[in-house]
């Protein structure tokens, strides 16, 4: 992850994952333990220095060299643990590749030992794996996986059975899973067929299956794991290739050293099936399912773009397939029926997927959002790129409530006294761009270095122009404020994830009391993390004060606490006589998923729940009497700074749709219409771009990571917002492209 600037800044530097931090802290001890275990595993080779067979002598010298070199590396790491010193530079990539060398070395020794101890481990039998067994394993795996995950999916869509829509979605999910396993069966049958034409069928079958495994692992890493971590394509290709070859080689070494290697059927059996009895295999299936479900449950709320969950599901499928292959007995079969067992399933699957009358939108059904069905459906439905280089174009730009009023009565009263913008959005899906955009009042470029942020920090310029002093608790923009700006840091020793509005307002009140003699106006900016996913999902996951029926209690309870502290601050301002002399803005820099379609947090996504934000503004009565607004007009957090300029008497020129504009105008005027305009939205951390249209009713998202597009009708209830794509998508893609090119032109950026 250190190879990716984004992953380094997001996960490594702030030590977001305690488990990862612990591993890095003690990695030298883990290395010593692994070193000891691997030395034990290669012990047999030490006795072969003068063996008759060259392969044995080779194994001896490889093992001896490994003990020496790896031992020196271990001593070096113990003397000065290096992993914690890695930064986001090329050394990280070199470290990963160097670690691969050690594993490949072990794999080479294992191969030499296996061939020495059991010469027939690969060549023993001439019969390869048959299509019938592969097909039986594929069908059995499909049934098992579908049963396990249908139970899990049903728990996500409660009380929906036996509704017809859910049954159809379940059938689609099952068909997609079947397609995946039949595709696996078909490829392995092809491998076995090629091998059967050679003189050493088992050896050839084993080698081809091993190459296929290496390729599959590499492709999974390159297409699924690396893109959400914003690892550039060249580095992703290098890492994925190294990892694929390494994992396959290590697995091959372990497989060949099995006691029953010579008896393990065909080459595919040798590679994939466990060396256990059939009874144990049946138990292993149950254990695999239980372990998979437990792991999925433990990671689902802290996952990043479903990377961990997809990995767990694919490992589960591989284990299930291997165990199923073990359960299917080998017997002589009539080869001439191979056409049926190889071509037949492919034709049946194609007919079911392509010709069956699946209803539109079945792939978006809540049932299909269960991770196993989601993976299968995404694999089966391969959306063609609307424009050959459109997603590449997006990736080149990427290298950088309603119903809660009962929970927040204070904010509700505040809203009644002020202006509530019902159609408010953020233009950026997460903090890294959304917070600077609030201050700049304009577009942010992912590649923009925040060290030059002061040039576009419009809010700081207003502070300087109008002689404001600043009281702030923020970790995103604060480091980039000018030294000449009079700033007081509130609660500076509190870590970002621990920032609490209650503590912040207490500190603010003390600051205001202590500086009562200072007549300068104050700009206060607070960005507490009370309801951030790090506190509502990752930590605790407990409600602070009981249940909140219909709401996610850990979030709702913390929101209620925020509301109480905000109310205390408003009361303080009223007592001080400052309330009606203050402009107060309550908003959020972005939203979060709380289990919608299995999503938690915000990651690299742009879904409706990420881009909709609250926006409430209290304006002093003397200003309120002089202005009007349009509360249903689409509003953005980038409008906040221009609004402050306008309310404080400054005139702004129209800067175009990329920029914010004042939310208030003089009573006799009208706000420029935004109903027909299109507005570019961007993920802060990944290659997701959206277009908001029709006054905030329509959201179209192009995800260059998953290479898919989504459309949403935001006027519909949350559960029904996802809609089918239309033929309008090409025009929308061109609009997104045009907006990005405008952004590039503004910054003089060339991707």
């Amino acid at each position, binding site marked *: 992850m250190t190879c990716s600037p984004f992953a380094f800044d997001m996960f490594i530097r702030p030590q977001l994952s305690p488990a990862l931090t612990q591993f890095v802290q003690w990695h030298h001890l883990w290395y010593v333990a692994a070193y000891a275990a691997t030395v034990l595993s290669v012990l047999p080779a030490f006795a072969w220095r003068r063996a008759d067979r060259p392969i044995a002598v080779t194994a001896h010298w490889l093992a001896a060299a490994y003990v020496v070199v790896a031992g020196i590396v271990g001593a070096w790491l113990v003397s000065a643990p290096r992993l914690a010193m890695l930064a986001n530079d090329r050394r990280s990539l070199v470290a990963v590749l160097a670690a691969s060398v050690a594993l490949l070395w072990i794999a080479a020794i294992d191969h030499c030992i296996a061939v020495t101890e059991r010469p027939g481990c690969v060549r023993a039998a001439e019969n390869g794996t048959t299509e019938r067994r592969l097909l039986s394993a594929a069908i059995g795996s499909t049934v098992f996986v579908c049963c396990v995950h249908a139970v899990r999916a049903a728990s996500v869509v409660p009380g929906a059975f036996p509704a017809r829509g859910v049954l159809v979605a379940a059938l689609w999910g099952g068909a997609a899973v079947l397609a995946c396993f039949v595709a696996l069966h078909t490829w392995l049958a092809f491998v076995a067929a090629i091998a*059967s*034409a050679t003189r050493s069928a088992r050896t050839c079958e084993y080698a081809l299956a091993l190459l296929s495994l290496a390729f599959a692992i590499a492709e999974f890493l390159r297409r699924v794991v690396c893109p959400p971590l914003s690892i550039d394509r060249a580095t992703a290709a290098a890492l994925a290739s190294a990892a694929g070859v390494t994992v396959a080689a290590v697995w091959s070494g372990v497989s060949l050293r099995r006691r029953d290697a010579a008896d393990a059927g065909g080459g595919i059996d040798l590679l994939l099936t466990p060396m256990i009895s059939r009874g144990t295999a049946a138990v292993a299936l149950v254990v695999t399912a239980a372990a998979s479900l437990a792991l999925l449950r433990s990671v689902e709320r802290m996952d990043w773009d479903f990377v961990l969950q997809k990995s767990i599901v694919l490992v589960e499928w591989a284990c299930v397939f291997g165990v199923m292959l073990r359960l299917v007995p080998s017997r002589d079969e009539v080869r001439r029926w191979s*056409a049926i067992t190889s071509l037949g399933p492919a*034709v049946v699957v194609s007919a079911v997927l392509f010709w069956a009358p699946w209803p539109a939108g079945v792939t978006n059904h809540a049932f299909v959002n269960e991770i196993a069905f989601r993976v299968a459906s995404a694999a089966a439905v*391969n959306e063609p790129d609307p424009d050959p280089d459109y997603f590449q174009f997006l990736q080149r730009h990427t290298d950088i409530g309603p119903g809660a009023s009962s929970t927040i009565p204070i904010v509700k009263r505040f809203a009644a006294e002020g202006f509530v913008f019902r159609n408010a959005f953020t233009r950026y899906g997460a903090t890294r761009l959304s917070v600077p955009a609030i201050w700049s009042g304009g577009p942010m470029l992912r590649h923009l270095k925040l060290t030059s942020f002061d040039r576009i920090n419009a809010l700081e310029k207003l502070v300087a122009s109008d002689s404001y002093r600043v009281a702030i608790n923020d970790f995103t923009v604060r480091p980039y404020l000018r030294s000449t700006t009079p700033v007081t840091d509130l609660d500076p020793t509190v870590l970002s994830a621990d920032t609490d509005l209650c503590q912040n307002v207490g500190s603010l009140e003390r600051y205001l009391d202590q500086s009562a003699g200072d007549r300068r106006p104050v700009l206060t900016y607070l960005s507490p993390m009370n309801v951030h996913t790090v506190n509502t999902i990752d930590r605790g996951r407990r409600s602070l004060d009981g249940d909140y029926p219909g709401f996610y209690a850990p979030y709702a309870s913390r929101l209620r606490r925020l509301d109480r502290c905000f109310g205390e601050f408003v009361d303080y301002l009223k007592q001080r006589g400052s309330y009606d002399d203050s402009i107060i803005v309550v908003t959020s820099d972005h939203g979060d998923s709380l289990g919608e379609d299995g999503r938690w947090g915000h990651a690299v996504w742009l879904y409706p729940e990420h881009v909709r934000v609250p926006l409430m503004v209290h304006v002093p009565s003397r200003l*309120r009497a002089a202005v009007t607004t349009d*509360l249903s007009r689409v509003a953005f957090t980038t409008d906040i700074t221009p609004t402050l300029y306008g309310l404080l008497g400054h005139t702004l020129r129209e800067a175009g749709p990329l920029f914010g504009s004042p939310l208030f105008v003089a009573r006799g005027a009208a706000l420029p219409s935004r109903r027909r305009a299109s507005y570019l939205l961007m993920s802060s951390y990944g290659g997701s771009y959206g277009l908001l249209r*029709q006054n905030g009713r329509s959201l179209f998202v192009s995800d260059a990571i998953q290479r898919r597009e989504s459309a949403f009708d935001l006027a519909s209830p949350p559960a029904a917002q996802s809609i*089918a794509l239309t033929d*309008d998508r090409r025009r929308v893609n061109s609009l997104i492209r045009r907006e990005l090119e405008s952004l590039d032109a503004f910054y003089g950026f060339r991707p």
Partner: protein
Amino acid sequence: MASIRIFNTFAAVCVIAVTFAQMGSRHRSDGASDVCLTLADTEPVHTPKPLTTLERCHAERPADADIAADLGAAYEAAGALDRAEGAYADAVQSDPDYADVQIRLAHLLLNRRAVDEARAHVEAALRVQPNRQPLLDLLRQTEHVE
């Protein structure tokens, strides 16, 4: 026999690959025509919108408030005030917060002395655009007409 087996399995691989490649187009449904969707995204002053096209698009997308508003404006320009009133009413039914159309509808209603209805639409517009002077003037106008 081996070559037949290779052929069969290779054919199966091709069938699966083609199926997966074509599934995307199978699950993409046709929607409204490009013309109507483009119409909804275009300000009426920028592009003239023929009445027949607006009528067709309104029939295709009855819930689209902007198309209904444009249709009402076209009817009004053509002197078909009854039809304009109907189109504006469709627009505010789809989007009750469409203040500009509430105002246009209020003017039409006021012209034919439907004062109470006109006042209701002005008040609806004021809830969205509070304190706006032209709306307050229009509200006073409804009181004078009475």
